[in-house]
């Protein structure tokens, strides 16, 4: 599976993104890491050009409520409805429903095992309602 792992916005903390990228590689995936401080448009262009099936977003700056839905909308605008989007970082429970509504299928907080993320990728790959633009609102439950 081709997976883009991205750090949107002004947030320099990439330890989490790198750990996830490495774990996904070790699970047999091809992981494209964008590096720090990318704009939503740059991230979506990378997903498009690399033909990634998954996009993992990491944010620890508190800007997830703005950046993540913006990226989801841009993906749909580009016709990339079938890309599966998941997120991680410091994301309060109260903020999650809005992100799920935007089309994100999983939000992983601190303490998540890398196995859980691999299991999510495996299940989402097998479903046809996991894309960012899919109707039905499937959400991954650990």
């Amino acid at each position: 599976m081709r997976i883009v792992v991205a750090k949107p916005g002004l947030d320099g903390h990439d330890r989490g993104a790198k750990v996830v990228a490495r774990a996904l590689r070790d699970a047999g995936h091809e992981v494209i890491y964008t590096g720090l401080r990318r704009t939503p448009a740059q991230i979506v262009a990378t997903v498009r050009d690399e033909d990634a099936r998954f996009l993992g977003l990491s944010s620890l700056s508190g800007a997830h409520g703005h950046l993540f839905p913006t990226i989801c909308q841009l993906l749909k605008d580009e016709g990339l409805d079938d890309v599966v989007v998941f997120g991680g970082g410091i994301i309060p429970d109260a903020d999650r429903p809005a992100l799920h509504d935007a089309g994100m299928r999983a939000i992983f907080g601190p303490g998540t095992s890398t196995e859980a993320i691999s299991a999510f990728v495996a299940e989402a790959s097998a479903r046809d309602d996991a894309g960012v633009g899919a109707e039905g609102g499937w959400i991954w439950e650990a």
Partner: protein
Amino acid sequence: MDAGALAARFEAARAGSRRDLARLLTDVEDGRISSTELLGTQRAEGRSIAITGPPGVGKSCFIDHLLRAHAERDDPVALLAVDPSSALSGGALLGDRIRLTSPDDEALAQRIYVRSVATRRSSGSIPSVLGDLVRVLHGCGWPLVVIETVGAGQSEVRCAAVADRIVLMEGPARGDAVQAEKAGLLELADLVLVNKADLDGAERHAAELRDSLALDGPDPPEVLLMSAQTGLGLPEALRSLRTLEARPGSERARARERLANAAEARLVRHEDYEGILARIANGNLAPEEAVEVIWRGG
């Protein structure tokens, strides 16, 4: 995927849809379709340049300048950035984009296409896949394709041999020129760039490379000093790339690598490849016999 849908995807990619181009390249990469099936036997118009060299010498940084220079002249340019897959998991971490700033420049983004390519498990077949990707890009309106590959190890050298021209990038204090020679890259190179010329040891290393190349015969490749960081010698390096001719010696070395590529691709794509491996492993078949079987198409 049926022929109609594929034709539509190809048409869309030619008309400029990046999404369709990206998906078409995945079809080729995953072996669902070959460039010949897509384009016929006609040769698509275009050039390809491989930039190769040891890890950390500044290939990505130089390529960023190269992409920018082309895009600024309104010329479309595509980059295939090759990184190794893990032999253990089959996965790969593809991080070449981190050092590229030109594709993020909104004024240039339309004319720059960057694609990360993993060598995957059967590294013997990646060079032929790469050749296919280059032809499909040419066929979709990307006349210049740059291939970035680490110049260490047989399969990476063969990735470089897919390109029409090969540029070897070296850095200062790389030890003696024997290191470059060992990898078999010097004889393939049409141009040698010694990067980080702002640091000590670059000039000495360039001199060693020139000495070593002079021993190889007539028509040695040019050795240029440059610094992708400070811009020293960069305009000359880019200019030299624009008009780069293949050396007669490098043509032959490249042909040899391409022939080996084709042979190896046929080997790893054989329908009973795994079975043949198992029989060799348990002593029921000699490798030489196996080659005979595969060659005869049995």
